[in-house]
């Protein structure tokens, strides 16, 4: 097909990299091949064909179908960048067109799934504010093109012309988290320990009762939990690099699939400092961040890995990064209120660790015994403030003050504080936001 002459190239749009067909096809054909191979194994081959031959047919068939579909989607996908927005049209039968106004862009990420990485390709992910389906992906482009596109989009998102935007190389590495540290941190986290204990208990029980079924019943849930934890916390956070640019922090991470995220300074809606039980002995912390748009996308990668700002760190660096993202805040404000003893009813042990407070820049609330979580929400990002009290709380003369932030890991609730104190905090919070 020849390009229609009179239309300028911009209006027609640009296709993504031709290898997309192959890569996307390869990704899809894995699924197809697995399904087809499954039928050959369970059925002992297809009809007259032998087992080996039908196996080969299944794999080849999966590849052909996958690449066929991959080619079609690639052929019909085009993107346009103009003065005001990015437009992506796609769809073979059902045409879809998405417009992304630059000013609504929350963040731009680059992902390199393993297969794409082998070909030097990458995927562009654009987050916009608003519920689910706020992520737009453009796959796949040459890695250099993706980087250039991200630079342009981020510059435009901040209302700059490309000409005056500075080159992206103004980056300084803040920290690199070595893989062994992530492994040690994961091994010492409680949920992994629980899953391990459960797994061992299941195996012991199976040997004791001499029943394979018992082992399977325990292996599946605990095993999958362990695999999930290791994937999320180790493989996806492998070789974690945090660097600083002109407009935001840059995160690069991943062992098999590399991901590169940008967190613009002014789009941080809140920060959570998490300290699991064992980590506290060593003074380690994990930092998670609330960015509008991230929470609604649990596409297998999970909210946890995308919202991680630092998988493991020491308090000094954590404090420095928090100070950079929310200028003028301390993690432990001087003016803070602890939950009173009479609130033990709601958290027999945890009440000792509950407090909330505010400093000129942010509202801070902390809670948790097994995993202590300190949440910070900057005042100028606070969406609303709520005071609540249930019948039991009324009996104990306590109340909860909640500072609402967009969906994400940050949940700044001062639970079960003294009722008068909670009301006073609520009122003070109104003056601050």
């Amino acid at each position, binding site marked *: 097909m020849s390009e229609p002459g009179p239309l300028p190239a911009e209006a027609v749009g640009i296709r993504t990299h031709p290898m997309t067909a192959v890569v996307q096809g390869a990704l899809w054909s894995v699924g197809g091949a697995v399904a087809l191979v499954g039928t050959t194994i369970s059925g002992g081959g297809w009809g007259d064909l032998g087992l080996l031959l039908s196996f080969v047919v299944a794999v080849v068939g999966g590849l052909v179908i996958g690449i066929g579909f991959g080619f079609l989607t690639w052929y019909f996908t085009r993107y346009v960048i103009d003065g005001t927005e990015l437009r992506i049209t796609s769809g073979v039968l059902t045409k879809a067109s998405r417009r992304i106004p630059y000013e609504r862009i929350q963040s731009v990420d680059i992902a390199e799934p393993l297969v794409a990485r082998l070909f030097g390709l990458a995927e562009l992910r654009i987050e916009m504010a608003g519920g689910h389906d706020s992520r737009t992906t453009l796959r796949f482009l040459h890695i250099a093109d993706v980087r250039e596109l991200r630079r342009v989009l981020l510059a435009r998102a901040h209302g700059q012309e490309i000409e005056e935007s500075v080159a992206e190389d103004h980056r300084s590495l803040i920290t690199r988290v070595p893989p062994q540290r992530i492994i040690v941190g994961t091994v010492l986290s409680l949920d992994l320990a629980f899953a391990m204990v459960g797994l061992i208990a299941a195996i012991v029980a199976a040997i004791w009762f001499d029943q394979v079924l018992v082992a399977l019943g325990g292996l599946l849930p605990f095993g999958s939990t362990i695999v999930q934890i290791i994937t999320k916390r180790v493989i996806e956070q492998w070789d974690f690099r945090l660097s600083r640019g002109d407009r935001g922090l840059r995160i690069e991470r991943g062992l098999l699939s590399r991901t590169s995220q940008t967190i613009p300074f002014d789009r941080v809606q809140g920060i959570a400092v998490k300290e699991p039980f064992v980590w506290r002995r060593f003074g380690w912390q994990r930092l998670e961040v609330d960015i*509008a748009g991230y929470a609604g996308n649990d596409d297998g990668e999970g909210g946890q890995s995308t919202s991680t700002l630092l998988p493991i760190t020491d308090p000094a660096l954590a404090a420095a990064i928090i100070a950079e993202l929310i200028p003028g805040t301390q993690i432990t404000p001087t003016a803070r209120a602890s939950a009173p003893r009479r609130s033990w009813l709601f958290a027999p042990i945890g009440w000792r660790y509950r407090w909330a407070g505010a400093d000129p820049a942010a509202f801070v609330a902390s809670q948790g015994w097994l995993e202590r979580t300190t949440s910070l929400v900057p005042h100028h990002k606070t*969406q*609303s403030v*709520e005071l609540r*009290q249930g019948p039991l709380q*009324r009996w104990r003369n306590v109340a909860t003050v909640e500072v*609402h932030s*967009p969906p994400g890991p940050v949940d700044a609730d001062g639970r079960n504080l003294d009722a008068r104190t909670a009301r006073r905090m609520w009122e003070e919070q109104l003056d601050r936001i």
Partner: protein
Amino acid sequence: MKQPMTPEDDLFSSPTGEWTRVSASLATIHRLTMTAPAVVVGIVAVVVALVVPSLQWIPWLVAASSVVEAIGSFIWAGRSQRAWGYAENDEDLLVTSGVMFKRLVAVPYGRMQFVDVQAGPLQRFFGVATVTLHTASAETTSNIPGLPSSEATRLRNRLTELGESRGAGV
């Protein structure tokens, strides 16, 4: 002179001094949707008990529980309606509600993403509507039911206007 106040009244009092209360029709609507069905179930149960004596105590139990439900919901509807209140402060909209579980939400005008006005058939019959505020946070579920239609429209226009003039976005 200090006014004698119970702690919980004080705790959820309006910073502006008073609450604008919602229409008494809200209680009527709740009574129609909750109390009336319970009364009907109770009457049916009594009739069944008298007509089919072989069922013994079962219909009476149903009748008794629906009487409890009817009385409870009748009282709750009134108290709940009186508990709803809102106030327009300089910088934020304040909404309070709840009889057992009391809450008091403050939404700064600039953080409102959009404002909805909804009215079902029963609500339209009584000339009331529900105004719902949306911010970027899912936790801000701030709705005000039982507003007279004209007041609902006024409030929506006022909030939209204030939201635009103070909008900080996300």
